[in-house]
């Protein structure tokens, strides 16, 4: 099987002895949306930069579209949106797209058409002649996505693509990314927004301390993290203290708006909890299963202790 991206024992040690990658083996199938997760300093950006020859590997090999990354040809029909990009302030939105497209060898009528199409795709058609220096962070990010998609690339790397983008535009960008994968492109996303990865990506890998620690589909990872446990949410009237103490054996946690959630191993336990609530004359308004989110799985799999206090159900 040929992969859009493949790395074999890829490693990187920077000057000064900092090891960013330790023998990363990764295969990304063609046409999938792939998410790379990991804490700060895990080596996510280094991995992408090595694949794009921005950083040189210390060891191992990698291919892009089946071509060795040491060849410039590997980067043909590849789009890239780096995190914290800085476009030349003297360029307009169309100028940014045109310049980077020309560097990729796109010329003539196709160039003009692609620039117009991609800026329209990210909702910036009316802003194409405005200099990017006057853009908000979210708008600049959309220009970045547009330039990454010019030329209908086979592989697109997006590093924090929705960083600074408002919710409505974020939804629009998700549609754009889905459309790219529907068109056959492989999209590789680095993002801290796990909810984003969850709704977009077919496959996910978790990188930690320079090594891939888990990989699979979102459902595989959540199943792996949850094991045979499941969570159920209840919305009830006020709970007496003695009942709350009893629910502690189910790792009960309060949530806003009269909700609390418990962890169970068998669905039959739901009836037992309802019985306990009813016998304490507590009104039960709603009961619902709570699917484990990728964020919970991520914390579960990586461990909560990362030098910061991380509470279950949210970061602090």
């Amino acid at each position, binding site marked *: 099987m040929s992969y859009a991206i493949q790395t074999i024992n890829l490693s990187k040690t920077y000057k000064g002895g900092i090891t960013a990658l330790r023998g990363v083996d990764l295969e990304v199938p063609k046409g999938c949306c792939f998410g790379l997760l990991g804490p700060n300093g895990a080596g996510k950006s280094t991995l992408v930069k090595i694949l794009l*020859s921005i950083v*040189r590997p210390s060891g191992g090999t990698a291919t892009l579209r089946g071509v060795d990354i040491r060849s410039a040809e590997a*980067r043909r029909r590849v789009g*890239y949106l780096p995190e*914290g990009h800085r476009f*030349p302030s003297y360029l307009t939105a169309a100028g940014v797209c045109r*310049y980077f497209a*020309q560097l990729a060898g796109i010329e003539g009528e196709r160039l003009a058409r692609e620039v117009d199409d991609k800026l329209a795709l990210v909702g910036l058609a009316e802003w194409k002649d405005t200099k990017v220096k006057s853009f908000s962070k979210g708008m600049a990010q959309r220009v970045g996505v547009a330039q990454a998609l010019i030329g209908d690339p086979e592989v697109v790397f997006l590093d924090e693509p929705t960083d600074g983008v408002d919710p409505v535009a974020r939804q629009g960008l998700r549609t754009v990314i889905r459309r790219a994968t529907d068109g056959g492109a492989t999209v590789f996303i680095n993002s801290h927004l796990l909810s984003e990865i969850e709704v977009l990506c077919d496959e996910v890998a978790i990188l930690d301390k320079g090594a891939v620690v888990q990989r699979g589909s979102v459902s595989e990872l959540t199943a792996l993290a949850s094991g045979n446990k499941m969570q159920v949410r209840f919305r009830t009237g006020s709970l007496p203290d003695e009942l709350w103490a009893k629910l502690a054996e189910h790792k009960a946690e309060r949530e806003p708006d009269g909700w609390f959630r418990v962890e169970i191993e068998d669905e039959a336990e739901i009836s037992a909890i309802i019985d306990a609530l009813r016998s304490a004359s507590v009104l039960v308004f709603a009961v619902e299963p709570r699917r484990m989110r990728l964020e919970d799985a991520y914390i579960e799999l990586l461990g909560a202790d990362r030098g910061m206090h991380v509470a279950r159900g949210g970061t602090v």
Partner: protein
Amino acid sequence: MGPLLAIIADTWRQSRQQVVFLIMLGALALTVLVSVALTHTIEGHEPDGTIVEKVAVHGIDDEGQLLTSAWMGLYSSTLMRELETDDLDPFSEEGQRMQEELMKIAELQAQTSAKQRGVEVLIYALGFAIYAISMLLFIAASAGYFPALLEAGAIDIVLAKPLERWRIFFGKYLGGMALFGAALFGAYALLFFGLGLRTGIWHPAIFRVMPLQLLSAATLFGLIALLGVLRGSTALAMIVGYIGYVLVDKIMRVLLFVPFGSDRWQSTQELLRTVIPNFAQVRETALLSVINAPATDWQPVFVMLAWLLLSLGLGYWVFYRRDY
């Protein structure tokens, strides 16, 4: 438009943003236009009473005397540059040869019209101004080219394109040089046509200044590019550029007069003068080539060429090896 042209075009846009390049264009155009406007021809008397046409400059040399008489001095200076000693014995073989050369210059002077000589001296003087203005402002304009290209967040997308790194490095370098070359050609072309229209002398030797000036600029830009790639600092690249262009020659001259005495120090001085690029010497050679082209002093030219290759090679190597 290919990727290389795209980089060159981007360098032009960057230059417009930086303003210094536009100031350079304006200063060059103003210098040439004002000088040409002040230049005119007059009729003057030779010592033997004949009436000849001369070139004069309003308010500076109204009689055209200075321009005409300076020609002999400038031409002779091209011979003096070839002398290896200040203490020439007129009866020695070299002394005799020098006297013969001076006789030839006197004959040449007699054969060259006063107007032609005046124009050549004017070209020398204006060439000096164009040279100085363009080089000094080019250092300021070009110092930011590489640091801006390599800025974090800006270089990533460029490197991710299907371009070898040598194309990016040399594309940026050629972009800077192409703009400078175009500006320089424009200035000398303006001077050529301006003086031609004002004096009737169409002197293509004006363009002889360009190759050596471009070599000087290329070497300076090579050093600036190397520093830009090494340190990513516009200010540092600019400072070193100015030191290299303005101060090195002055320091060398001062060192020559310092009476250290020891042979070893004398040899060190000689060595330094031989291996360090001397922009003032090359400038002088370039400007005098308008009057006497064969008198080119090749030693500093070769040294400059070596530094150009060295700085470009090293700059590219650093760019090629570095992670961004």
